[in-house]
């Protein structure tokens, strides 16, 4: 199994790479079209700001590549947000894989939403052997609006899509690579799809 992690200007790639290796899988971190296109699985990670990340992806042509992928793809955190239609962060047109808008949390509680929170309504092979109300680690100031494509929900200030799935595209707002044993199970489920 060849796993490609998409290399671009949004950090935190090392954590994902480490987590995958701890699970006994190998991976290649790359922005090479052929490497990504021919991989069995692709992870699209990300921590950072939406508009600068999208600009970078478009400049490199990675935007068109990502939406054309046919193998299972997992977006993480900013990766999930970039797979949506539009983000309020920097008024950014995103990849449009998911029919969903990304909005900023209102300042009714501490922002960013940082720490462990529970996910519910789990309905995807991503969550095999993961119990309802499991706690996973979140860090974000923008959220994906609830959508018919969501496969997990979380509630902070308001309900939002904690994970999504459409065809071969999967995504989660939380960081499975930082979510202890539960996160490892979710990553393992993706890698074994």
């Amino acid at each position, binding site marked *: 199994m060849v796993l490609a992690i998409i290399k671009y200007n949004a*950090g*935190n790639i*090392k*954590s994902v790479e*480490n*987590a995958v*290796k*701890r699970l006994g899988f190998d991976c290649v971190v790359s922005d090479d079209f052929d490497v990504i296109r021919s991989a069995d699985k692709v992870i699209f990670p990300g*921590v*950072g*700001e939406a508009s600068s990340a999208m600009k970078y992806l478009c400049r490199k042509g990675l935007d068109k590549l990502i939406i054309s992928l046919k193998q299972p793809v997992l977006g993480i955190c900013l990766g999930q947000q970039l797979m949506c239609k539009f983000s309020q962060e920097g008024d950014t047109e995103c990849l449009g894989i998911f029919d969903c808008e990304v909005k900023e949390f209102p*300042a009714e509680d*501490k*922002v*960013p*939403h*940082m*720490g*462990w*929170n*529970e996910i519910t309504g789990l309905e995807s092979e991503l969550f095999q052997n993961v119990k309802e109300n499991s*706690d996973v*680690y979140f*860090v*974000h*100031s923008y959220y994906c609006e609830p959508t018919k494509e969501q496969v997990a929900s979380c*509630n*902070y200030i308001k309900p939002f899509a904690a994970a999504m799935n459409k065809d071969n595209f999967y995504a989660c707002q939380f*960081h499975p*690579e*930082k*979510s*202890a*044993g*539960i*996160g*490892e199970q979710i990553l393992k489920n993706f890698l074994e799809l």
Partner: protein
Amino acid sequence: MLKKRIIPCLDIKDGRTVKGINFVGIRDAGDPIELAKKYAEDGADELVFLDITATVEKRKTLVDLVEKVAAEINIPFTVGGGINSLEDVEAVIKAGADKVSINSAAVKRPELIREIAEQFGSQCVVLAIDTKFNGLEWKVFVKGGREETALETIDWAKQGESLGAGEILLTSMNNDGTKNGFALDITNEVAKSINIPVIASGGAGAKEDFKNLFQNTEAGAGLAASIFHYGEIPVPELKNYLLNENIPVRYEN
């Protein structure tokens, strides 16, 4: 519901943990990796590594350590202690740290907070504030608490937030080492005056101290060192206690 976080802090000198005892199942309590793994397995929500090395080799040993920790640990961790420049930040972030905590360097040059936030995101900037009540007001101290500044604690926390800090790690020097509990008043005053999470530090000596912290303040996390290192309060026992007190904490069976 967002859970209250329990964060053990490991003091590091020359790549080794300074304090600590040999827990069952740990061969070498001086090995930060072994201790960190133990905490992660016990259900700690995050870890903080505070480097107190004073040698010129500091950066290299710290980066080596961060790489090893990042390879082994499956929960978020923060690295702090003598982080003075954007280059220092880049080195530890690239090695795999999730967050950096900055203290004296930010007081000296507040723009550093903005620079780190712009390059790596606010989520990775923890502004550490050492505070002490001088009889009149809570003042900010730097250089490991040796030097008083002109800054008032709440003003500095607000400024840190506006510059792009993602979290405040507030240590009360009046409470640190006393084991008499966290400084509830200043912790809550700071937490109420800003909209980013506050990690309370200094004074934890008993399980009840965490209950009091979370029941009486808006702090999102409690940090402690010795009670965990010396095995006085194991993390699972603390979390079990807090759950029974109806405080939301993460508890994996």
